[in-house]
């Protein structure tokens, strides 16, 4: 009788809780094994990508020229000034604002930061304005014309161009 009661006590107080704990541990082990398998499959697929990524330094440089890894405001201003000069236009004023980083769905990949450049430019010809816009559009660093106002000065052939341009950079 004592043995039966002892067995019952061992089962209820020890085996049952141990079985529960062991079951949890088995679940955890299974999850970790699955996690390992997932990681391995991702890393196996990524390894060739990493290898080619390391050899694609030129592409990395191009991307960094298009979307620098920090705002680089002086560079943006210098580039716009250069583009204006190349189209025989002159910049009268520039206002710069740094806007919030565009959020991304992914938590790993950061969004793009924006610098908002407001420019007032003088131009002596309509063709210059078109050429300037074309150059802004095809510049290596990405600029995006958000607003442009072109107005002709009274009784002259000159124009005033007010431009709102976004320059982008890669947030980190």
């Amino acid at each position, binding site marked *: 009788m004592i043995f039966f009661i002892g067995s019952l006590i061992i089962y209820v107080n020890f085996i049952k809780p141990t079985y529960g704990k062991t079951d949890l541990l088995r679940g955890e082990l299974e999850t970790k094994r699955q996690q390992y398998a997932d990681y391995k499959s991702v890393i196996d697929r990524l390894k060739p990508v990493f290898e080619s990524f390391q050899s694609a330094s030129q592409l990395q440089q191009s991307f960094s020229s298009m979307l620098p890894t920090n705002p680089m405001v002086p560079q943006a201003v210098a580039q716009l000034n250069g583009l204006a000069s190349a189209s025989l236009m002159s910049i009268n004023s520039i206002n710069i604002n740094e806007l919030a980083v565009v959020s991304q769905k992914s938590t790993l990949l*950061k969004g793009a930061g924006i610098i908002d450049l407001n420019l007032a430019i003088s131009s002596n010809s309509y063709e210059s304005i078109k050429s300037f*816009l074309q150059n802004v559009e095809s510049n290596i660093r990405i600029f995006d014309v958000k607003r442009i106002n072109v107005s002709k000065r009274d009784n002259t052939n000159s124009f005033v161009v007010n431009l709102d341009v976004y320059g982008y950079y*890669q947030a*980190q």
Partner: protein
Amino acid sequence: MAFNKTLLEQELKKGEELQVGWPWRIMVFSAIVFITTAGIFLGAEFGFKTYIKSQITQVDSQIDELTRSIPEDQQKSFLIFSAQANNIQKVLNDRYNTPSIFDFLEKNTIKNVFYKGVTFDAKELTINIDGIAPDFNTLAQQMEIFRNATSTISKASIGRSSAITEKDKSGRDLSSSVSFTAVLKLKK
């Protein structure tokens, strides 16, 4: 006869022995159950549980090793590179081709209509025009041209239009024209 009697006695004795042996058998059985239960507990607690724990530690270290197989700085620069590719594509896809606005206006403007000011807003996708037409008829034709350019324009409307008359010093009418503003809503 004596032989038969002995057999009977023997059978009867067996019954007595059985009665006497049952408690012992139950005790032995209980003891076996007890030992088995204790064995199961000890096996589960110190054998199987410990084995699973060691397996978890092993898998953890394998995961760590796997993560370390690609250096952290490489992972970081790869993530930046991926984010750049992603953002470049997004920005270029969303960007409106501003020079095309001017090409559109050039191709779709009547010879005698002039623009004093043009404002293009990429966020609102609108072109605001401040212009001069020789007369209301021409202005109506001009607006009709905009309305028919359905591949670029979704809506064209006149904001304000008024006749302007230029006079000479003596007050005689020299020429007349129509000043107007218009809003063109662009298609995405």
